[in-house]
């Protein structure tokens, strides 16, 4: 494979004045990383955007519609990913991970591992024939295990860059030594099974770490069936079910038998605000997205009933409280204040035992599907990245800003900034604002030199 996948305008590094490199690296290509990259690029600085997955867009790309406006996530995000991909100042290094960081502000040297895609991205035209014909169908991670994905894949039809990768853990050729269908079919001969990981080094003056979040795995919740009850799904899975590009092309159908669920229970604070057993913090977005889920469900299943178990409703944000109220008053969503103690399968039903603490009564719902608003957590390896960057992560792995109130994007290391959910749970608007702030801090730093 040639040195780089995405040959967008390999511009020369901005001339260093007094040896200070005015070029930035953004780690993480979600909405925060994209926003920061575009800001810096528009300000005239060259940006290297490193993303672990094959394409940019991050978690937002998995979402169906966003609160409080209910507009389509992909419709708002795709122009941004395309802009990032085409920006003359932004160089994309997707399917890549930061391995080593040395140096100081104005002169960081970053070693990056470019994972073998087994596809020569320079030759690949993105025609998609390989993905169509790949015989290996397995549950797709992007669709939270619900839809089937191929062993050679892009994350979405609008992927930026629109180049596929082969997952050797799923590819028949890698596993059994036979197949090579994609190689035979590729009209330009871009499939290279012998490709190896490559390492590149980038010299930058500032770094923004915007690596995003993960969700607490359902398998942790014994009381909710340890992830073994098929119609108990998490919030991101519901987003995929509701998404036109998802496994059901946007119809709400439950995973076990594809039936339209008529009673759906949503459980907020699954793993959040539970210091004794799980995470002590509030994940901040669940009240809003659960309200959104219930409303979206009602928009598609008019005769369905949505129940939401909640502890408190935290809808602090512009237009947020109104959004929740509308769900309660106009769309008949039943809010139950209390926790759920157990979920189990009973025939075709999923039985939910909970408490309604306002009436003091036990509640039992014989539901068709349950959606858990599982806690937002840092990426599982965020502490390792923090160590490589020399910045501080808290006990959970969220990156720590140097001062809580007045310096929300700076770390203790000059030239390294944090943005988005890597610092703590945030909704999209807050993540973007945080990223804008990080980008402006980089510009101030560059302007000083």
């Amino acid at each position, binding site marked *: 494979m040639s040195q780089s996948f995405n040959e967008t305008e390999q511009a020369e590094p901005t001339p260093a004045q007094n040896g200070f490199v005015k070029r930035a690296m953004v780690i993480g290509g979600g909405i925060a990383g994209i926003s920061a990259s575009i800001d810096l690029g528009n300000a005239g600085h060259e940006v290297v955007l490193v993303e672990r997955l094959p394409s940019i867009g991050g978690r937002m790309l998995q979402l169906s519609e966003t609160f409080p406006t209910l507009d389509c996530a992909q419709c708002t995000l795709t122009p941004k990913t395309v802009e990032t991909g085409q920006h003359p100042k932004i160089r994309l290094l997707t399917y890549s991970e930061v391995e080593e960081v040395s140096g100081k502000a104005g002169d960081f040297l970053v070693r990056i591992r470019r994972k073998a895609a087994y596809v020569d991205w320079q030759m690949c035209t993105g025609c998609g024939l390989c993905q169509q014909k790949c015989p290996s169908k397995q549950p797709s991670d992007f669709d939270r295990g619900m839809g089937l994905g191929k062993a050679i894949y892009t994350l979405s039809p609008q992927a930026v860059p629109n180049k596929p990768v082969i997952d050797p853990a799923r590819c028949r050729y890698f596993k059994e030594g036979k197949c090579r269908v994609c190689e035979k079919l590729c009209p330009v001969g871009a499939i290279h099974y012998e490709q190896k990981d490559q390492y590149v080094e980038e010299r930058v003056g500032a770094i923004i770490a915007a690596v995003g979040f993960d969700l607490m795995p359902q398998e942790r919740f*014994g009381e909710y069936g*340890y992830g073994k009850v098929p119609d108990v799904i998490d919030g991101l899975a519901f987003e995929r079910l509701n998404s036109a590009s998802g496994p059901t092309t946007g119809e709400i159908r439950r995973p076990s038998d594809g039936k339209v669920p008529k009673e759906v229970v949503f459980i907020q604070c699954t793993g959040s605000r539970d210091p004794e057993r799980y995470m002590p913090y509030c994940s901040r977005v669940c009240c809003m997205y659960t309200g959104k889920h219930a409303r979206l469900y009602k928009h598609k299943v008019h005769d369905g009933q949505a129940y939401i178990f909640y502890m408190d409703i935290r809808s602090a944000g512009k237009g947020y409280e109104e959004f929740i109220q509308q769900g309660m008053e106009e769309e008949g969503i039943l809010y139950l204040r209390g926790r759920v103690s157990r979920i189990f399968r009973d025939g075709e039903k999923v039985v939910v035992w909970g408490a309604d603490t306002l009436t003091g009564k036990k509640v039992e719902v014989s539901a068709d599907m349950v959606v858990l608003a599982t806690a937002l957590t840092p990426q599982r390896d965020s502490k390792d990245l923090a160590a490589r960057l020399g910045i501080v992560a808290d006990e959970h792995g969220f990156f720590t800003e140097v001062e809580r109130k007045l310096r929300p994007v700076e770390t203790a290391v000059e030239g390294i900034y944090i943005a988005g959910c890597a610092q703590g749970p945030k909704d999209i608007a807050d993540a973007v604002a945080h990223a804008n702030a990080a980008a402006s801090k980089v510009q101030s730093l560059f302007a000083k030199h």
Partner: protein
Amino acid sequence: MDYLYFPGCTLYTKAKNFDQTARNCSKLLGFELKELSKWTCCGATFPLATDNLMALLPPARILANAREEGNVLTTLCAVCFNVIKRTNRLIQGDGEKRDKINNYIEKNYAGDLRVLHYLEVLKQDIGFSQLKEKVQKPLAGLKTAAYYGCMLLRPFSEMGFDDKERPSLFEEFLEALGAKAVDFPYKIECCGSFQSVGSPEVATECAYKILTSAIKNGAEAVVSTCPMCTFNIDHKQADIRQKYLDFKPVPIFYFTQLLGISMGLDHQTLGFEQNAIDPLPLLREKGFF
């Protein structure tokens, strides 16, 4: 290896069948239950008040006396097990309370007894695969529901008996005997406990739900580790039938009774006369006797 054994009051009265079958099976399995030379009531519930010193004295005294006779103590009744294990843990970990208790009972007990439930002895010291080999009469074709109740498991952090939400030890035991163990959602739910005294209708309702859930999932018999649970789910079936006319009685076993059958013990020695629902018709139907 022999085990110090704390029977507890109920096993001397209403649950003699539990006690006797356990003792007899132990011999067949190659160990002996050595009953403590002196013991009293365990206290029957673990005290939950902050100032719980007085209530901790009976179990502490039992433990301190037991320590003079050996270093592993086993019990059968899930309630006694809960009280004794938790008291032991508290004496181990709380120096201040330990000193106060020791001063009062005039002992010097450090909390260093190993307290095991009989099922844990079978699992950890004998091993279920060994147990399986010793089975004379496999309980083939018998569909059982392993009913844990609360006391073996809760509080999870203190009991450490098995997985907190989906335990499987009891089922593994039943499978080792050759029986089938069905899964049912009520297996760790409360039996109603002492509510059967003050608000019997509450306990009856609990028992009804547990039993119907087990039956719905295919169980022909429910297996218990606790005389309190057994009272509610076995002896109260008459009350259930008064309220729910279509409820069909289901036999309740102590797990040691099933162990006894599988060890080849004669049904006269298994104490079925103390079972409220006679299990013999079912056992005969399955061809065990």
